[in-house]
């Protein structure tokens, strides 16, 4: 409510709201995470992001000068929908849908990567998995091939040793500008796993290692300012821009 009041006040006086306040109004959860949100926060995705955070910032939150990202924001996106395909054991394939939710006016999407576990060891079995793009946005000439598990791949990739989570850049496999429209911001991945080892069901095993996406973004204040500036200039009655001649 306070956020709405601030926004209303800003609109009233014609001043652009501050970027941090803007984000607080738009993105911050309104209350402490409860139930399902707490569940969503846990597990490998959170561990992965905490590791990424520790790599790029010290314990005071200062970005490390010697190990900087090419972008200033990384968003982890979990699948928003799952469709299991019928198949005989020991194979299981599911199609996972991801809603990219990129705001082109203020965010520039630089890179898209998928993070998935190639191997998952449980008490009764070992699970091996692969992912590939499915749907219209994928380029059939560029099949996804998992890279060999290693501690670091290039600058920005961090891998978990225990269950060999790998980060794979899929930017080049997507059509340029595929996420410009709302409809095309949906990305589908086909996730196939096979079980090795003792007998047993799949219950809960695959959901432990659902792949997730990492969106590398350049979130610019300039974008926000130009968006707000445009809105303000549209409010100017004459519609003209004042300029000063250079002597």
């Amino acid at each position, binding site marked *: 409510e306070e956020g709405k009041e601030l926004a209303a006040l800003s609109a009233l006086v014609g001043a652009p709201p501050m970027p941090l306040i803007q984000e607080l109004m738009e993105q911050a959860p309104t209350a402490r*995470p409860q139930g399902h*949100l707490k569940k969503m926060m846990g597990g490998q995705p959170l561990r992965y992001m*905490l590791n990424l955070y520790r790599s*790029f910032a010290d314990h005071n939150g200062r970005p490390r000068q010697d190990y900087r990202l090419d972008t200033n924001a990384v968003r982890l996106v979990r699948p928003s929908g799952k469709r299991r395909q019928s198949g005989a054991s020991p194979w299981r394939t599911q199609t996972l849908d991801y809603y990219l*939710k990129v705001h082109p006016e203020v965010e520039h999407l630089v890179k898209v990567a998928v993070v998935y576990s190639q191997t998952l060891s449980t008490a009764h079995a070992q699970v091996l998995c692969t992912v590939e793009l499915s749907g219209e946005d994928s380029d059939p000439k560029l099949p996804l091939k998992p890279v060999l598990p290693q501690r670091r791949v290039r600058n920005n990739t961090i891998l978990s040793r225990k269950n060999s989570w790998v980060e794979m850049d899929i930017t080049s496999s997507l059509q340029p500008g595929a996420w410009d429209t709302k409809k095309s911001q949906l990305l589908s991945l086909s996730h196939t796993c096979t079980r090795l080892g003792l007998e047993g069901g799949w219950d809960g095993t695959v959901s432990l290692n659902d792949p997730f996406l990492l969106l590398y973004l350049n979130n610019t204040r300039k974008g926000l300012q130009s968006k707000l500036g445009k809105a303000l200039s549209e409010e100017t009655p004459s519609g003209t821009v004042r300029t000063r001649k250079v002597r």
Partner: protein
Amino acid sequence: QAGNIVLDLPSYLQKNSNEKDECSLHSFRVSFAQLGWDHWIIAPHRYNPKYCKGNCPRILRYGYNSPNHAIVQNFINELVDQSVPRPSCVPYKYSPISVLMIEQNGSILYKEYEDMIAESCTCR
């Protein structure tokens, strides 16, 4: 009159160089829980934005990175009208902070925010 102040500068600096309440950068640690943002920001837990506090000296030195306007305003306060205040002690340079946060839809976001930590102070 202004010339007299400038001629007075070396002795003034010598006399007042140890002033404890002079404009300077101070540390202040705050937790995101205290700010009410701990449901949003996962890391870091604590944050030191720092702040600037203190009196701006009568004669502004180069170290303060004060613009010409601040120096003129100081002269006006000193020589013309004391209702015009002296320049204020405010942050000059900032550094960014990296945060890990939860968005409304449950996405986890790593982000670098510019201008979140004061690094030096100025009088302006």
